[in-house]
């Protein structure tokens, strides 16, 4: 499965990569902000996206809204420090399928990925 990790922190992308590798996923692409992700999406064609909210250049919410204009189905998990209920609702309205609040344990991230793929009918 092709997974795109969009986060301005390389440390956070590495942590996510490590969890995903433990789950058996090896095909990953990284982007450091929403704009970078949009420029790589065509070539990589991800089947799952993990997206941070607060990023320079283009934030995660703007990215999700832009991406969803052309793609309604590829599952997106927001992985962010934005924990307020109002933010979660805003993200879901924009088209996010699931939500992980930082800090997270590897188990929690793994559980959210599994439930998101199941809910969206994607084979892992």
């Amino acid at each position: 499965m092709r997974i795109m990790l969009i986060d301005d922190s390389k440390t956070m992308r590495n942590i996510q990569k490590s969890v995903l590798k433990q789950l058996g996923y090896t095909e990953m692409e990284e982007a450091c902000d929403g704009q970078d992700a949009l420029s790589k999406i065509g070539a990589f064609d991800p089947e799952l996206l993990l997206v941070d909210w607060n990023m320079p250049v283009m934030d995660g919410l703007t990215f999700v809204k832009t991406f969803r204009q052309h793609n309604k189905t590829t599952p997106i998990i927001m992985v962010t420090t934005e924990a307020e209920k109002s933010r979660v609702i805003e993200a879901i309205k924009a088209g996010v399928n699931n939500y992980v609040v930082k800090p997270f344990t590897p188990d929690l991230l793994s559980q959210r990925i599994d439930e998101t793929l199941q809910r969206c009918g994607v084979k892992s």
Partner: protein
Amino acid sequence: MDAAYITPFVASIQNVFGTMLQLPVEVGDPRLLKSDKASHDISGIIGMTGTLSGSVVLSLPQETADAIVALFCGERIDADSPDFADAIGELVNMISGGAKASFEGQDVSISCPNVVIGPGHKVSRPSDIPCVVIPCTTDCGELAIEVAIRETAPSTPADANADASANATA
């Protein structure tokens, strides 16, 4: 500064360090910081805007930062590497984000982090915002959270008219 704006940072650093680093944090008595000299060698800085505004600084001595970044990244990272600043920035980002979620009834946004590395540096803050230092102790060494935030006065229709007028004549 209202204690309600300090305690969320205590809970948040304990949550972030406990969850991501498995590192317990012992918190000392908060005190007012009366100098703009940073508490320690390295400052991870986040700005806050909205109904609360100001800044949050994660301040660490070099040795503590080396040990904490190694725990966070799974390997030792040279302080000159951009990855070192990235790790400090992500930690202060999570601490600030966790705290702001506890500010009931407030609408606050946080900036992307900036990181300053070097002994003896200063962090300049608006003089009318008191800065509270929360000293912390961990098995990796001591560190501090410096919180300087205040409530932002709500704008009134008269303010909005004045702003519009100012913008129009600028």
